[in-house]
């Protein structure tokens, strides 16, 4: 059975607070953590040590997430590393296209900021194929389902939306 202390996660985010928060959550869960402030710095870090998993922000000043991702895919040793996208731009004009490119080409799942620590850890574990507690599995499943639903709602036609609304209203009654 894989244990977190055998696994290294690279956290890429330009905001110091976010890096500090996510790395602390990860190390508290027992993971080894590397950090980088941009896509460019992340590539430098990876040349020294290859992580098992990358937690990636999308919009960053030096080397955006999507560019970093394209670089990863060029390198055979890196192309298979699972990626968890953590972004605040999931549903606006700045990040939507990038996110679509990444999720369509199989970059795992994404979490929308702000993220709860247990959701974050559950998603990381799920992507690494690690055993999770029942609670974590449920959370991860829920997150994924919620994300999928959000995407579907974004693309849905008015008629479907109306039906969906009725369904949810009925459930509540």
């Amino acid at each position, binding site marked *: 059975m894989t244990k977190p202390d055998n696994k290294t996660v690279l956290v890429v985010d*330009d*905001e*110091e*607070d*976010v890096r*500090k*928060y*996510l790395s*602390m*959550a990860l190390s*508290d869960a027992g993971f080894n953590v590397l950090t980088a402030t941009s896509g460019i710095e992340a590539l430098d870090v990876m040349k020294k040590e290859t992580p098992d998993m990358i937690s990636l922000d999308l*919009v*960053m*000043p*030096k080397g*955006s997430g999507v*560019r970093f991702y394209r670089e990863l895919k060029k390198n055979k040793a890196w192309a298979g590393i699972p990626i968890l996208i953590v972004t*605040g*731009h999931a*549903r*606006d*004009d*700045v990040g939507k296209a990038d996110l679509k490119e990444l999720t369509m080409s199989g970059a795992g799942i994404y979490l*929308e*900021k*702000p*993220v*709860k*620590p247990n959701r974050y850890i559950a998603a990381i574990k799920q992507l690494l194929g690690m055993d999770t507690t029942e609670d974590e599995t449920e959370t991860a499943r829920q997150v994924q389902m919620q994300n999928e639903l959000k995407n579907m709602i974004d693309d849905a036609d008015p008629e479907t939306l109306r039906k969906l609304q009725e369904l949810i209203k009925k459930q509540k009654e």
Partner: protein
Amino acid sequence: MSSSAKKKTPGLEEWMYHSLFQQVPFNVAIIDRDYNIVSANDNFTEYFGQWRGRKCYKVYKNLDQPCLGCNARLTFEDAQPRLSDESGVDQHGKEAHYVVHIAPLRKRKGATVKYIIEMSRDIVETKNWQMEYQLLFERVPCYITVIDRNYKIIRANEAFRKNFGDVIGRRCFEVYKKRKTKCPNCPASRTFRDGQVHRSQQVGIKKGGEQAHYVLTTSPLGRQADQIAHVIEMSTDISDVKKLEKEVLEAERLGAVGQTVAGLAHSIKNILMGLEGGMYIMGRGLEVNDRDKLDQGWEMLERNFNKTTSLVRDFLSFAKGRMPELEMVNPNRLVEEIIGLYQAIAADVGVALKADLNPRAHSVPLDPKGIHTCLTNLVSNAIDACEMSDNKHGEVCISTTDKKGVLSFIVSDNGTGMDSEIKGKVFTTFFTTKGGKGTGLGLLTTRKIVKEHGGRISVSSKPSEGTRFRIAFPKSRLNALYKEEKSK
């Protein structure tokens, strides 16, 4: 004398009878009292065809008896010359329009008129032009009226009549605007006065009662100002354009609201992420009783709380719609103020702040507070870009130029620079590359202020070389804004 004159001009008579007869640019025919054409020149033959042994009414109009109201008959009777417009057929049977001069030929005054001479000239082309102009006047898709000095409409085209009703003889102000008296600032009266063309936007009332927005041009009919008897009023209906304008504005406003809300949501998400992080770290600190973690968590909470404050402040300043309050100010003075404010801040992070001022700059109407905000935003961005870059000799330069009537402020740095992807997003609401430091409203606010001044903002940048922002103001627009503001 007369005999010597005759001797001096031999052949003149012959020339008179033959060459002149042939060469005058008219169709000439000589007709006797029985309407027989007895002689005609080559022009005549060419135009009307064979005439020998034929009656004039047959040749001119292909009729079998004299024309009704025949002018020739009248001249045979009273020996008076006559001039008339006639229609007939040419030698190919085509409709012909011509003007005819009729003159009596007689030996002496009082003698019976035995022959008359008819000189005619084709006016088909003139007629066609007249018809074309008439058609153009009637069908042109704008309103045209001609008014006299009493503002009475003497002519109106089809489009006008269709929209404003039967108007001939009525006063223009009654018809255009349903007024009982002359309009204030009447452009037609200005044209009557100065003989110049005047253009203005007007709102009138159509015959159905609906409003019509139109651009009106008044031009004089007459060569000199004191001789203008009529003015032509031409107007283009822009009611549809006005309606569209309103719709577009509305759509843009809604779009901007949507964008703003999305951006605001993103900024709040980021702050929430920071608060989430702070809470987590503090929670862990309490759990494991770690003073250092507690401090870190608390700091993070504080930082993100402050971010909320600056977000609200920036958002309010961006959302506040205000017209620039212009006053005469020397652009160099504004730059010097900024240099004074930022010199120390820049030096603290190892960035040199310089000015390159146009020595011939003179005062122009600007909103000093607005421009101060713009320059503050650009300069603090530039300093940040230098701070983030690997270049150890960071430098920011503010310059002023005045070329071809355009006043420019240029802020350049040798900092991180931007790739095209980021460059395309810098004017997006709430877009920031500065992580926690920025609210993503600075450049947007700057652009808004520049636009309110009638100016433009542009950016050129290369990754790891630097960035150059230019805000440019055409001075003619600044002066026009200034005049407008003063007149209010």
